[in-house]
């Protein structure tokens, strides 16, 4: 039972790492898009 805590923590860390990085990339995309829109006065096509 004690071992299951390590297993659960391991799987949780893995999923949080992957999702966290994907989230961070989405933020960077949004920031760059916002800057480009402001600089050019045009909206950028596509979601990201």
């Amino acid at each position, binding site marked *: 039972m*004690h071992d299951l805590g*390590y297993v659960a923590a391991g799987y949780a*860390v*893995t999923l949080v790492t992957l999702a966290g990085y994907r989230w961070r990339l989405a933020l960077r*995309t949004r920031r760059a898009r916002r800057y480009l829109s402001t*600089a*050019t006065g045009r909206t950028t096509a596509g979601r990201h």
Partner: protein
Amino acid sequence: MRYVYRALTLLGGHRAQRVMGAATLVGLAATVAIGLFVVPPDAEQGDVQRLMYVHVPAAWVTYLSFGAVFVASIAYLRTGRIQWDRVACASAEIGVRFCALTIVLGALWGRPVWGTWWTWDPRLTTTAVLLLIYVGYLSLRRVADNPIRRARWAAVVGVVGFIDVPIVHMSVVWWRSLHQQATVVRPGAPTIAGSMLATLLLAFVAFSLAYGYLMAVRMRVGRLEDRSALPVSELSTPRARRPRPVQATAVNGSPHHA
């Protein structure tokens, strides 16, 4: 169907990228479900051995990422094309995360099995050195101000740093190690049960898809950030009249780069 499409849209931009994102999600979900609830526990280690289905694939993606950095760095040094530098940078950024994840998962596995979170074992030490090399690689990219110089220095580190990858893999063979020997990528047949091997192979596929998907997204982010680092005058010029881009395009040197 609309909601499925909406969910796919959230995964990324292009259609192929969305499909890859969905395949990654399915693969990871299957790995977690089978790894936690379907495969039997190990006869000696019990349930804690289930960490193998995330620890070993994370290590594989670390090798894959730094292998891509190696190939892209050689390609950059040979051709001078900045696109290769972008590939190397993106792959290094992902590789560093997977390398750190491998170390953390190893510590979580080592505590109940070895009785310690960390020991200066050859496999652990060489992996820590690998992480430091590529953290250094990313730091170097921030130090150099000239984009050409940055790309060249980074490419040299990307080639030289890869030397540690085979050392990490062979460390359990070359030196006396607390870490177990390779069970899949080894001379001869794998030494684990069929159901465990099948789950592990599924996890390899899922993690490789995750790498491919993150690379695709990261490359798009890199292109956007490079564009946003250009002078505003160039940004507002229509693409057709814009002067041909020279190699001095800032690669991830924009203020947006995190």
